[in-house]
């Protein structure tokens, strides 16, 4: 293994590859900040360019773009409450409130440090445990995935409900209902399209997230513009704050990062789970670990609440390379695009990649780490400039957010219908937010909707329509018991509240 690491370092640390990774990180950050263009799009855009390089350099460029885009997505989540990809939705929960309090610089710095630490720890795990973890990940069956996703939905409802669990669960059901629109994945039968061809492919994630987060946030700011309390809050938006993280905040991050890294990496290893579930679960887990006083700060700019999802989503990104490199199975959309690129180079990822192309296997792993180092060095000095987005006056910022949201949708479909649908959903979401119906459960349910149905379908078909699959496997049973425990605890809490 040591020999492999040295081969990887030798390749990744050549001057050409360092320059490539720097360009990749910078380009990825810019692309990731644009709404609707996440890591997957960023990597896809780079594929034609990578074919001009040798395979190792091409993959190094893609690794740089990948991490840059993830960080760029976090930046727009924190500054504009506009997460372009599902993996950074949880970052906005505490990152955006922190930016609203005039600590945008600090929020970006915490995100950068957490991402770096999460990536570093998971890169070490990747080096040590990749082969054995891939075997464990293969032992997960459909019932386990179904239970894991139910746990994710329950956890996100519990932590974002602010004591109104049923409201959060209602949003979960609404999210799943929205995800069910379009063609059934197995039979291709149209559902809830009412004969409208525009709905036959379903509603896109970017449309939902832009409508419920970015656009409805912009409309809410205008809607509550006359509210004296809100107006006072807006003044602080012009303050950028320091990027320095004090001792107390460092201690908080130091506690959060290890546990979120482990969770993120393990979730990332599971095919199909990925950064989204990892970031939501890490947020929920962190809330359970902290003191009651800290718990109250969640959703209002908590350091733990920002650090946990940022650490976990980066750790999950590294984790998702385990099934790709060791088994040839892409665990996420992004790694699926990378698999396509690898095949384009004539490389077949899998157990034999160690033997046939060790320099590629190890240089990808090492370049991922170098990519993170470069990202930290590049982006930290840029944070004060990036954070200046918040200093843009409200009269300019709100139309620009609307413009980015509508452009994101327009670029995807060139279709008026999607724009109208987004405006309609944004208006409904604005009223729902007004009466404190939380949006995060809706988003996660929407993202997981198809996967939940898929896994439920497989489980029920295997068990011939019997729900015994819920308790047949110990792993499924344990995950479901935790889910039931969370629901029970929420009901108990609401009953004892005076």
């Amino acid at each position, binding site marked *: 293994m040591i020999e492999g690491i040295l081969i990887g370092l030798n390749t990744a640390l050549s001057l050409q590859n360092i320059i490539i990774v720097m360009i990749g990180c910078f380009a990825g950050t810019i692309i990731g900040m644009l709404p609707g263009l996440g890591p997957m799009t960023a990597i896809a855009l780079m594929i034609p360019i990578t074919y001009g390089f040798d395979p190792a350099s091409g993959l190094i460029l893609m690794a740089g773009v990948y991490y840059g885009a993830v960080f760029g997505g976090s930046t727009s989540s924190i500054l504009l409450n506009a997460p372009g990809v599902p993996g950074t939705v949880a970052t906005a929960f505490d990152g955006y409130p922190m930016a609203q309090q005039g600590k945008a610089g600090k929020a970006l710095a915490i995100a950068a440090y957490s991402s770096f630490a999460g990536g570093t720890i998971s890169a070490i795990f990747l080096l040590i445990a990749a082969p054995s973890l891939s075997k464990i990940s293969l032992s997960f069956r459909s019932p386990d995935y179904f239970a894991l996703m139910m746990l994710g939905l329950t956890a996100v409802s519990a932590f974002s409900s602010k004591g*109104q669990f049923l409201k959060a669960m209602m949003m979960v059901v609404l999210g799943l209902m929205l995800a069910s629109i379009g063609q059934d994945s197995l039979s291709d039968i149209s559902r809830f399209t009412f004969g409208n061809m525009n709905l036959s492919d379903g509603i896109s994630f970017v449309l939902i997230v832009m409508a419920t987060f970015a656009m409805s946030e912009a409309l809410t700011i205008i*809607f509550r*513009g006359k509210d004296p309390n809100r107006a006072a809050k807006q003044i602080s938006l012009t303050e950028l704050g320091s990027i320095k993280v004090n001792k107390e905040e460092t201690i908080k991050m130091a506690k959060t990062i290890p546990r979120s890294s482990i969770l993120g990496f393990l979730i990332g290893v599971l095919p199909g789970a990925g950064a989204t579930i990892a970031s939501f679960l890490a947020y929920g887990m962190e809330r359970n670990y902290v003191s009651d006083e800290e718990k109250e700060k969640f959703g209002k700019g908590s350091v733990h609440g920002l650090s946990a999802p940022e650490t976990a989503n980066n750790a999950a990104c590294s984790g998702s390379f385990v099934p790709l490199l060791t088994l040839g199975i892409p665990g996420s959309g992004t790694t699926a695009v990378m698999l396509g690129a690898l095949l384009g180079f004539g490389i077949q990822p899998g157990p034999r990649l160690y033997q046939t192309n060790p320099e590629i296997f190890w240089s990808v792993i090492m370049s991922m780490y170098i990519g993170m180092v470069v990202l930290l060095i590049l982006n930290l000095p840029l944070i004060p400039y990036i954070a200046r987005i918040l200093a843009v006056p409200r*009269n300019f910022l709100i*139309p620009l957010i609307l413009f980015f949201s509508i*452009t994101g949708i327009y670029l995807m479909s060139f279709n008026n219908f999607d724009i109208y649908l987004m405006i309609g959903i944004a208006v409904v979401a604005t009223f729902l937010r007004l*009466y404190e119906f939380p949006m995060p459960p809706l988003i996660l349910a929407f993202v997981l909707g198809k996967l939940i149905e898929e896994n439920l379908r497989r489980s029920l*078909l295997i068990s011939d329509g019997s729900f015994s699959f819920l308790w047949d496997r110990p792993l499924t049973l344990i995950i479901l018991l935790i889910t039931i425990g969370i629901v029970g605890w929420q009901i108990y809490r609401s009953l004892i509240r005076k």
Partner: protein
Amino acid sequence: MRISPTKFISLLFFIFSVFYLYTAHQIVVFTFDENAPFNARTFPIYLGWAGILISGLIIILPEKIKIEVNHKHLDYKSIIYLILISIIYGAVILKIGYFLSTSLFLIASYYFLGERRWLWMFLLSFPFVAIFMFLLHGVLNIYLRDPLLQYLGIIG
């Protein structure tokens, strides 16, 4: 009797769930799939019942946390203007093209939000959109449909 906004929203969701459940039952599945343990209508039926159950519980159970919104503090006028401008933007974007419609949308939005610094309004509309288009279309090679600029021969 005054119904609270939360319960009213839940009532609307209850009605929506009943409609959703009814529509789920109307999904036509293949004949050989009719009696399968899982078909295209199974999951939506579960969701319909879940929606009815949860919204029903919110309506029935006492409301422990009351959300009060002072409607006098809500700026209905600006939000209606913004939504109308967005709808018009959506309607014309394919006809007059991305560049012109987006620039006009931005200028109109700035104006209705009370902005009167015309130089900034101009800079953050036409030149800003042009740079943005160059980034997407010229640098990243992302196709932007713009019949007007194509007609003028500015983009291919």
